[in-house]
């Protein structure tokens, strides 16, 4: 997970590339809190996200200023052993939508 944008504020990123650095971006606090409120509503998942395939999109993450992290991928969003089911990938998509326009490929 890239840490280049984590010195202050909320940051997010996507596991995406092989040759290039993965994209990371800042997330406004309000949006981050809203995403986490949605995450709180998700039902528990029986297991953490499975390991994604080696190449291509492999999930995204959100990091709080205090270092807490959430990882979303394959219809599961997890943080520190607490995994939630996100069957429609709504929270994951909301997190991806915080990326600046054009930063991520279409169709994630």
């Amino acid at each position: 997970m890239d840490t280049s944008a984590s010195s202050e504020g909320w940051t997010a990123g996507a596991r995406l590339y092989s040759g290039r650095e993965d994209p990371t971006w800042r997330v406004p606090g309000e949006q981050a809190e809203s995403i986490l409120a949605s995450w709180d509503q998700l039902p528990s998942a029986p297991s953490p996200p499975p390991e994604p395939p080696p190449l291509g999109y492999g999930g995204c993450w959100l990091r709080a200023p205090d270092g807490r992290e959430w990882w979303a991928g394959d219809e599961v969003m997890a943080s520190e052993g607490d995994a939630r089911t996100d069957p429609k990938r709504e929270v994951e998509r909301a997190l991806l939508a915080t990326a600046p326009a054009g930063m991520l490929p279409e169709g994630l």
Partner: protein
Amino acid sequence: MSITLTVDVFSGRPNPTVVITGPQEEELLERLRPEEKVHLEEVAHLAEPRLGYRGVAVQIEGERPRGVPSSLRVVNGVAFAGKKAFRIADAGFEGFVGSSEGPLRPLHGREQELPQLLWDEIGRSLELMVPWERIRETLKPKVEPGCQCAPLYEPEWWNVPAIQPYNNCYNYGTDVRTNTFAQPGKAAGAEYTGLTCSAVRKAALADDLIDAPKANNKCPGKGHLVALVIWPNSDFHWYRKGKTGYWSHKPGSTAVTNRDNSGALIADPRSADRGPYTSFCTFMVVMHGHVRII
């Protein structure tokens, strides 16, 4: 003459067995006729012991057509006899044997559930077996002398916190750790200007990789083979061919692996499941100690 068929499927109870004589024999022999030789090592996994369906054992007494052994076992359309294996003429032989119209008919009267049970079990087992094309694709390639110069597959060396996050596919492909997430052409002041095959290839040439478009998955006499693929307009990716003939790669900051996106070993990156890296660009050669990357 007679043919004894035994469906090897049960563990505790006796396997269903039937002895065929008369006109049916000829039909069975025609279905069992050798069609194509196969290397035993390529299909050995089919004959491994397992619970559930393990094949149809065939014993032939009396005259046989040329090439048909007296004792064989058919699994997934492949006949095993001693140290030989061949594909039989009727790829659906086992399905025929297990079907309600098949040669086990005489047993169906006292075991009415048998045809369905065999049909289901044979079908289930054959589905679990890896298709022939997939086997062929992932067969261990013959190690050519040139591959002796290739780097070893040693993921444990790369997959550690001090190395893994800071080295990418280009580092791994060239076998040069820089901890800079190396970019093609950057060391030569000629970094790629687009995420296309031609742009990244040109940048790699500037780093002294050698163009080998006709390598055709063959190891070079010196150095080792790498392969460039592109996720059009999004990213590049490199694979490297190892000493064993298999390929491995390091997807970005993640761990080194020798598997493709379908979980298969990579015998040839051109046919591997590469996810969105849909453009196979070219093979190139890395001469150890000659390339310079940052």
